């Protein structure tokens, strides 16, 4: 370790000339798992990878039944994600993808990937650590994994948090870069994880949020996903009736999204309504008309008639807790 690196690490640890919390040092958005827009408790499908719980984290489970839930974190990090597996589980993957424009800064550099982990049982557990990349620019339909290190059971402490890190040279490509953990040997177990950090350099410095603050972290996450409304009696947007059975309105995203997002919306009769003067005609779902990465024109086809030109508030009714509206421009 060079004198400069040693000085930097000591100063960060002690709060010296280099402050211990530096926004942008950490390349992992939501590494502290502050943001759970989708769900704070969910059972994930077997062998169907996806974004299920903490924002920006991509999960895969093979075997048994796996539940993700938000739990208390460690070392000043409020939250962690608990991965509860059952007998038959052979593999859990936890991944975080960076778009190419952001990942370029890491490529070919010495980086340190650190995280906190707490396994209820450590026997037989092994954690492969590495980076991975897509086959085409920001298109993760096909990926290549590159393992850089392994955390063995001996490096874990049953029922206790430990911080682990692996230093390696990040892969270089023209498509993007992500970071992953592949956890094997869990079977029926409970593993908690938080404090993901990928930084340039060969030491793991104290954890800090990529977005520096809670609001910064939320905005980072909303670049990729925005849960507009989840559950009952949630306001969504203002709309006006274009015909007696059709209303339309513009919804503005809280931040500009990575690309024009997809609109994901539940579809159940009576789960949405438009509150207008003299009534609240219901509708089962939204469709979309014109949209870009800043805003969208949403359309409601009403089950009962209203007055042309009538304006009102679209909201989720009290019918179903499963009602949702979300925009996604995830990688």
């Amino acid at each position, binding site marked *: 370790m060079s004198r400069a690196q040693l000085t930097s690490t000591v100063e960060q640890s002690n709060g010296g000339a280099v402050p211990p919390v530096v926004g942008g040092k950490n390349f992992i958005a939501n590494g502290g798992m502050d943001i759970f827009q989708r769900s704070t408790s969910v059972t994930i499908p077997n062998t169907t990878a996806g974004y299920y719980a903490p924002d920006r984290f991509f999960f895969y489970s093979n075997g048994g039944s796996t539940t993700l839930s938000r739990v208390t974190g460690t070392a000043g990090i409020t939250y962690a994600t608990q991965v509860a597996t059952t007998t038959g589980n052979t593999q859990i993957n936890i991944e975080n993808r960076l778009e190419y424009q952001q990942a370029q800064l890491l490529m070919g550099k010495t980086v340190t990937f650190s995280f906190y982990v707490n396994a209820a049982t450590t026997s037989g557990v092994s954690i492969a650590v590495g980076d991975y990349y897509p086959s085409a620019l920001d*298109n993760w339909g096909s990926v290549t994994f590159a393992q850089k290190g392994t955390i063995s059971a001996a490096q874990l402490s049953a029922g206790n948090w430990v911080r682990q890190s692996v230093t390696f040279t990040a892969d270089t490509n023209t498509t993007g870069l992500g970071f992953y953990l592949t956890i094997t040997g869990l079977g029926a177990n409970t593993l908690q994880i938080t404090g993901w950090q990928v930084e340039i350099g060969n030491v793991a410095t104290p954890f800090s949020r990529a977005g520096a603050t809670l609001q910064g972290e939320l905005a980072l996450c909303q670049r990729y996903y925005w849960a507009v409304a989840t559950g009952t009696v949630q306001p969504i947007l203002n709309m006006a009736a274009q015909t007696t059975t059709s209303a339309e309105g513009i919804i503005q995203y809280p931040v500009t999204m990575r690309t024009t*997002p*997809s609109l*994901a*919306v539940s*579809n159940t009769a009576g789960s949405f309504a438009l509150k207008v003067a003299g009534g609240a005609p219901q509708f089962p779902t*939204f469709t*979309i008309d*014109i949209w870009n990465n800043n805003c969208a024109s949403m359309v409601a086809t009403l089950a009962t008639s209203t007055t042309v030109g009538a304006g009102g508030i679209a909201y989720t009714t009290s019918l179903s807790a499963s009602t949702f509206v979300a925009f996604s421009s995830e990688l």
Partner: protein
Amino acid sequence: MITYSTYTNSNGDTVIQGVREDGSNIFIPTDPANSDYQAYLATLAANSAPQG
């Protein structure tokens, strides 16, 4: 498994509508950078590939 169809919006652009197994909808723009559109194209390519 998503079942896809398309419609044309008021600007004349194609919108892809997917219906998921749980009945929920996903509306996908024809934007090459959108990962759902990338998945849609991959599904089309797989379905049009010669069956061995």
